[in-house]
């Protein structure tokens, strides 16, 4: 048979030859103009960001959100005019479009009033996990349609800020339970709320205790160590990991300090400036969430958490008995209580031996 005569079969005509040649270019071509094209496209489409705040009432969640985005996303509740305490955990979602220098950001903030406020807080994380999974489900349903939309609206929770009450001791059982379950489903950033009630030394001690607690229970908060890609990332992220959880103070009132107008809380013994690194670590939180890691949060949600959800969801709908080729390839999961994921599916990654052949319809 003539060696030149080859009918291109799908497998052989794939262009990805493992051997890619690096070429010497002899002059300017203009490839880097693609970066500008990307920017133009991104600015036109706008960005989306979904954030969830979880914590007991009175820890300053709404104020914190207002401070983060420097606008009145919610009316912060004053004690006298408070609505009666909700009997069950609810979720409130609010969507805003904010613009800065031509960059449009569609921001969705989900609040969880009633979390941890009841006498019996058992399974109070279920509605939250349910909400998060529901967003994943929505995206999945959109993605597997035959006629898909050009741009699937992204309502998945990209980041969950967990407010730890400033007891100064260590993480409470409720905190531990919640963090354990949620870290598998979403990026969690724990913060020490109302940090103005702790002195600097108390803060440091508290922080170290929390870090130890997290390590003991193998809770991976954002930025997760296992997703560091290269050396630069590692260095940057380990600096952040040393300071997690940030001790923050939220404020949406402005006061005059030394002739400047700053956001802060006014007390009899002084004014706590929110943006001052010596007073609290709010700038770190803001920089992490918005200025440097926003895209990374979205990427990890899309590439890791959403994919995990998808795998489990697509597998558990195979109600067929597992055949003789069933192989469990996953390493043993870290010790976690049953029902880690909200769905009853197995937490380990199971893989059929004939997995790939499933797709040849």
């Amino acid at each position, binding site marked *: 048979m003539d060696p030149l005569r*080859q*009918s291109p079969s799908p497998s052989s005509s*794939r*262009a990805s030859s493992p051997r890619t040649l690096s070429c010497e270019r002899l002059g300017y071509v203009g490839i880097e103009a693609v970066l500008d094209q990307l920017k133009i496209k991104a600015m036109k489409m706008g960005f989306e960001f979904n954030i969830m705040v979880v914590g007991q009432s009175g820890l300053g969640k709404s104020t914190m959100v207002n401070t983060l985005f420097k606008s009145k996303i919610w009316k912060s509740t004053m004690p006298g005019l408070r609505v009666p305490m909700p009997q069950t955990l609810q979720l409130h979602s609010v969507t805003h479009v904010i*613009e800065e220098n031509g960059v449009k950001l569609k921001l969705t903030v989900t609040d969880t009033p009633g979390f941890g406020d009841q006498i019996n807080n058992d399974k109070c994380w279920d509605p939250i996990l349910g909400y998060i*999974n529901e967003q994943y489900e929505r995206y999945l349903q959109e993605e597997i349609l035959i006629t898909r939309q050009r741009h699937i609206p992204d309502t998945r929770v990209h980041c969950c800020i967990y407010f730890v009450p400033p007891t100064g001791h260590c993480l409470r059982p409720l905190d531990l339970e919640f963090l354990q379950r949620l870290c598998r489903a979403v990026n969690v950033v724990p913060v020490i709320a109302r940090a103005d009630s702790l002195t600097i030394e108390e803060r440091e001690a508290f922080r170290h205790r929390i870090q130890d607690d997290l390590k003991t229970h193998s809770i991976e908060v954002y930025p997760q160590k296992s997703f560091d890609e290269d050396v630069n990332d590692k260095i940057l992220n380990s600096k952040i990991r040393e300071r997690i959880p940030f001790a923050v103070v939220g404020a949406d009132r402005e006061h005059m300090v030394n002739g400047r107008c700053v956001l802060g809380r006014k007390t009899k013994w002084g004014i706590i400036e929110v943006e001052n690194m010596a007073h609290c670590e709010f700038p770190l939180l803001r920089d992490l969430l918005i200025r440097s890691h926003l895209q990374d949060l979205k990427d990890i949600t899309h590439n890791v958490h959403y994919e995990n959800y998808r795998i489990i969801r697509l597998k558990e709908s195979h109600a067929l008995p597992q055949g003789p080729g069933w192989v469990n390839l996953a390493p043993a999961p870290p010790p976690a209580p049953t029902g880690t994921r*909200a769905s009853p599916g197995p937490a380990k990654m199971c893989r059929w031996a004939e997995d790939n052949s499933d*797709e040849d319809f």
Partner: protein
Amino acid sequence: HGTDLCRHPSSKKTLCRSQLFQSHITTKTAHTSSQVSDHEQKQKDSPRSLTMSGHVGFESLPDQLVNRSIQQGFCFNILCVGETGIGKSTLIDTLFNTNFEDHESSHFYPHVRLKAQTYELQESNVRLKLTIVNTVGFGDQINKEESYQPIVDYIDAQFEAYLQEELKIKRSLFNYHDSRVHVCLYFISPTGHSLKTLDLLTMKSLDSKVNIIPVIAKADAISKTELQKFKIKLMSELVSNGVQIYQFPTDDETIAKINASMNGHLPFAVVGSMDEVKVGNKMVKARQYPWGVVQVENENHCDFVKLREMLICTNMEDLRDQTHTRHYELYRRRKLEEMGFMDVGPENQPLSLQETYEAKRHEFYGERQRKEEEMKQLFVQRVKEKEAILKEAERELQAKFEHLKRVHQEEKLRLEEKRRLLEEEIMAFSKKKATSEIYQNQTFMTPGSNLRKDKDRKK
């Protein structure tokens, strides 16, 4: 209070106060497969726009996005379709300012083949994985009926590979080497008259699968006036035959003007060359003829610079985008519909791909079970038959054995009988012999009487 579901109707104006509150009832089951109705979705789509009182800092978002893309690197795949010797490789070399491949291809291939090569280019901090796919042997055969089929097959194969990856359960899309063809440069030979039939057919079969940019190759073979007429003729032929070539996008103000003017210059008349010629006091890429020098990068001489501008500097991202959102989606939709999936079921209930897939899976599984059963039955039956035959043979063998044994026994008995008789005879004979010897002895003693006795005896 906790179980009220209040929803305010929202208007489309973004400056109106249209806040959307959703109260979720405590859900017992963890994940609810909720299908959000269109109406709800539209309500959610008109959020309130907010003004901020200070600098928040998310204007760095595009930069974050760009940084991530730089880390990941870019992928671009070009397909060059054109006759052998029309200048495809030279043009690609000139476009990317690199000597990719050196040897000329032969004219004697019996079939059209596609050859793909991947190269890694880097310019400042942008890494580009460029894949050039060349058609080898296009237009060389005497019978050109099947010339364009391999090209269509190749493009479909790339889409198929991506679709397979996307449908996998455990997939890794973010580091998948995207091999889908982003742009097809179609090389038209500079006859000056009109499109060849082969060109028309090929472009017609490719236009719904890939972005086509037609170029007039070896444009230094046509004079300027002829070129204008040629271009007009080509475009009118393409339009009248309904071929959809790629139009440069004009929806973004920054590039709309230049794109619109470029759209008017299609198809680009290009000249490719990597040889350098001294013009004035500079070395430029050009082709030297006895009657003059055709400079590649001179806009008066050919449209090469325009092509490079459009292809790489201005619209690379849009080409990739169109491939993914238009051509790939079309392919995916067709393929899935072909396999029997639908979005809407018999009673106009939205069917999920998942359920259909599951149903099909059940079907196939059932089918397989049934076939297995069948084969098992067949096997058992055959085994039984074989056993019966073997048993029969065994019985026969046994019977034969018995028969032989009997025969043997009889033989043995007869022989025994004979032997006994023989022995009796032997005994009788030996007795006779003994008595005769005694007689002889006695006759020796009394010779006379023996004889008489003998005589007597003999009487």
